[in-house]
């Protein structure tokens, strides 16, 4: 067979492959994605919506956003003068126009200085999230300063606060670090988390910008590729031959403690932990500083394959386990980190195309074996590895490393569940929570209480009925309504209010469930025991907590029997966010 004949056969076969039937249902996949990630996603969204500063700052921020949409319709006076916090300003001596004078003088100058420092064009710079937010705030203040109807007066302190707040909002990551370093005292953990989050968020925006820039200029790097491979050493040696825009990006990223890495022949930027850690070591506790070591290791996976060596990955996973705590869930990247951990573990346990787990003889490769054992041995008392990895290693060891049922059945969600379980266990053991509930056994007593609540509440959906209900009873009621197929009552148990993002019942269009429960199912058949712990409340954040349900075994193979429900306390008692399970 000659080359031409071969090419023809391949062309014909290619055409025949068009007949591969499709049963693709995007709706089904979307439903799966929603049920897997909605809780996590909503938590992240809620975090963004939650106040991260003191009340005054929150109000300024809320007004700033609201102004974009509503200011022109209702006018500034309504918002401003109806706000109790702002009314305190009436004891002061400055009008808002005077408050704004220094801001108007300095903000544009600092903004421009920072743009030049980043060596960006204005259209690129103004698209950075923190810059556009700062600009919106500035524009809003400017409008307020010109509002002649406003009679409010502000104290020296308040004037100073406005100035500091807006100037901080335009700071680059490196400048944020210097501001933190100038603090005379060590930050509290809550302050440190806010500071780290702010630093991370702004750095992440720059990283995204630099990553995209290098991707767009991928062809400009061809001259430094050897056999298609890109090495950071060669890239740096030829840096002065790169287009100016890429040279600028490398230089400005370095100033912001961001370093260039090559991952699978692509340029990506990441955190430089050494510099950052050194600058903050007197101000932030060592445990929280370890997050920078973790961030420095990002990305852990690339398209499902491990980026680092197996040993390095184990080190990073161990560091994550020793560092993270449920108390840190206010960190803006906390949920993303949980996902990154689970992805790395999944790749470490399942192997890759280039380096499979099993060797030619059908045994687990020694490097993977050692890595798994290392991960288990160095894990903390509450390590998630005890949940997802121990059964796998036990089975493999018993079969001379040839087979494990748990390994074969391991799903990504098993790792996520184990992580949540571990974080919760660890948190409970160290928490001095001021409110908790326990239902040691789920029996007729619990069932009859839930049934009574259901009878009362499902008829009218009068929220006041549940004002004194325990958090665990609300969870029980939610599940009971589910069993009854009463989606309206389930909907009424969601926390209300714009910031929680619960859409209208019509828009929600029904709630997606796994319909494996029959109407005769009893709660006592589903649950073994339940606990609830209220989480630490940060300033004016919502009062919230986590209910943890230990389920009865539903399946033959189930690594984790725990489900967690997040609850938020509102004026009529405990309620659930949309899709609260995790």
């Amino acid at each position, binding site marked *: *067979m000659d080359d031409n*004949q*071969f090419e023809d*056969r*391949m062309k*014909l*076969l*290619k055409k*025949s*492959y*068009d*007949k*591969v*039937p*499709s*049963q*693709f*249902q*995007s*709706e*089904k*996949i*979307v439903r*799966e*994605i*929603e049920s*897997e*990630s909605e809780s996590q*996603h909503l938590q992240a*969204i809620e975090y963004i919506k939650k106040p991260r500063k003191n009340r005054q700052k929150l109000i300024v921020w809320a007004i700033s956003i609201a102004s974009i949409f509503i200011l022109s319709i209702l006018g500034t006076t309504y918002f401003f003068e109806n706000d109790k916090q702002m009314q305190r300003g009436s004891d002061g001596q400055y009008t808002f126009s005077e408050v704004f004078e220094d801001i108007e003088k300095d903000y544009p100058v600092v903004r421009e200085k920072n743009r030049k420092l980043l060596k960006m064009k204005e259209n690129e710079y103004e698209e950075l999230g923190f810059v556009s937010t700062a600009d919106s705030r500035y524009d809003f203040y400017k409008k307020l300063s010109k509002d002649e109807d406003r009679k409010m007066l502000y104290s020296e302190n308040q004037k100073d606060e406005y100035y500091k707040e807006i100037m901080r909002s335009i700071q680059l990551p490196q400048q944020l670090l210097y501001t933190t370093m100038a603090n005379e005292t060590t930050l509290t953990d809550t302050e440190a988390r806010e500071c780290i989050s702010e630093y991370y968020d702004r750095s992440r925006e720059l990283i995204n910008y630099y*990553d*995209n820039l290098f*991707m767009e200029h*991928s062809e400009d790097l061809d001259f430094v590729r050897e*056999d*298609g*491979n890109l090495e950071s050493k060669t890239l740096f040696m030829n840096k002065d031959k790169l287009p100016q825009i890429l040279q600028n990006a490398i230089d400005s990223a370095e100033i912001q403690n961001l370093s260039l890495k090559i991952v*699978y*022949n*692509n340029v990506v930027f990441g955190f430089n932990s050494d510099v950052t850690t050194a600058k903050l070591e007197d101000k932030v506790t060592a445990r929280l500083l370890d997050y920078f070591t973790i961030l420095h290791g990002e*990305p852990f*996976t*690339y*398209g*499902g*394959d491990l980026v680092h060596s197996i040993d390095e990955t184990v080190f990073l996973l161990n560091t994550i386990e020793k560092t993270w705590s449920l108390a840190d869930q206010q960190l803006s990247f906390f949920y*993303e980190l949980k*996902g990154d951990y689970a*992805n790395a573990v999944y790749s470490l346990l*399942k192997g*890759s*195309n*280039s380096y*499979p787990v099993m060797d030619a003889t059908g045994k687990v490769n020694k490097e993977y074996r050692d890595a798994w054992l290392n991960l288990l041995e160095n894990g903390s008392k509450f390590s998630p590895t005890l949940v997802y990895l121990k059964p796998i290693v036990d089975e493999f060891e018993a079969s001379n490393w040839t087979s494990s049922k748990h390994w*074969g059945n391991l799903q*990504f969600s098993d790792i996520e569940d184990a992580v949540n379980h571990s974080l919760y266990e660890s948190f409970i053991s160290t928490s001095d929570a001021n409110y908790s509930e326990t239902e040691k056994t789920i029996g007729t007593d619990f069932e009859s209480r839930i049934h009574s609540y259901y009878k009362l509440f499902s008829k009218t959906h009068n929220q006041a009925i549940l004002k004194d209900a325990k958090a665990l009873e609300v969870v029980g009621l939610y599940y009971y309504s589910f069993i009854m197929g009463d989606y309206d009552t389930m909907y009424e148990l969601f926390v209300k209010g714009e910031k929680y993002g619960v859409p209208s019942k019509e828009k929600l269009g029904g709630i997606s469930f796994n319909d494996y429960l029959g109407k005769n199912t009893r709660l006592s058949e589903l649950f073994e025991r339940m606990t609830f712990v209220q989480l630490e409340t940060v300033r004016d954040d919502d009062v919230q907590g986590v209910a943890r349900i230990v389920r009865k075994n539903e399946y033959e193979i189930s690594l984790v029997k725990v489900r967690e429900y997040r609850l938020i306390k509102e004026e009529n008692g405990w309620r659930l966010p949309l899709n609260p399970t995790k």
Partner: protein
Amino acid sequence: MPDKELIAKAQSGDLESYSLLMQLHHRTVEKFAFQCGVHVHDIPDVTQEVFIKLYRFLHQFNHERFTTWLYKITLNATRDYYRKETREVAKEHRLSQNSSKHTYTPSAEERILIFEEDQELHIAILQLDGKYRHPIVLFYFHELTYEQIADVLNISLPSVKTRLLRAKEQLKRELSKIGGTNNGR
């Protein structure tokens, strides 16, 4: 709406855009999975697995990386599929040994590749070792460049060229053995 825009929207949590993105790319996944040896009736499961996994990585990639990762993740999903499939085949084998009735029905694969020549070539490709099969599938049926194949398979450019060459040699040899030289439609 171009991919780039859909990806950006999906990254910001817009599942409708992700749905559109899936609509645009699901055929690639389905065909690639089939070409890697996934049975027709398992393609929907593998496709679902791919798009769920892809969604998890959504925050990490841009337009250029999207297609590369689509192939990477499909490859990983087919690898998981093989593992499960091996167990199932073993189970079926045990069951069939206990069954006295054997009936022949044309496989779903045969219904797709109705020409014998296509079936032979398809089987020959599936019999190649994965390190030769994947480059040849990506090169001939998905028209990826050498560089793109290197990226998807995490191998160097020279390796791509060598593997393609060897895969072609093996396939030609195999087809000659079964009389492929003279076959036509």
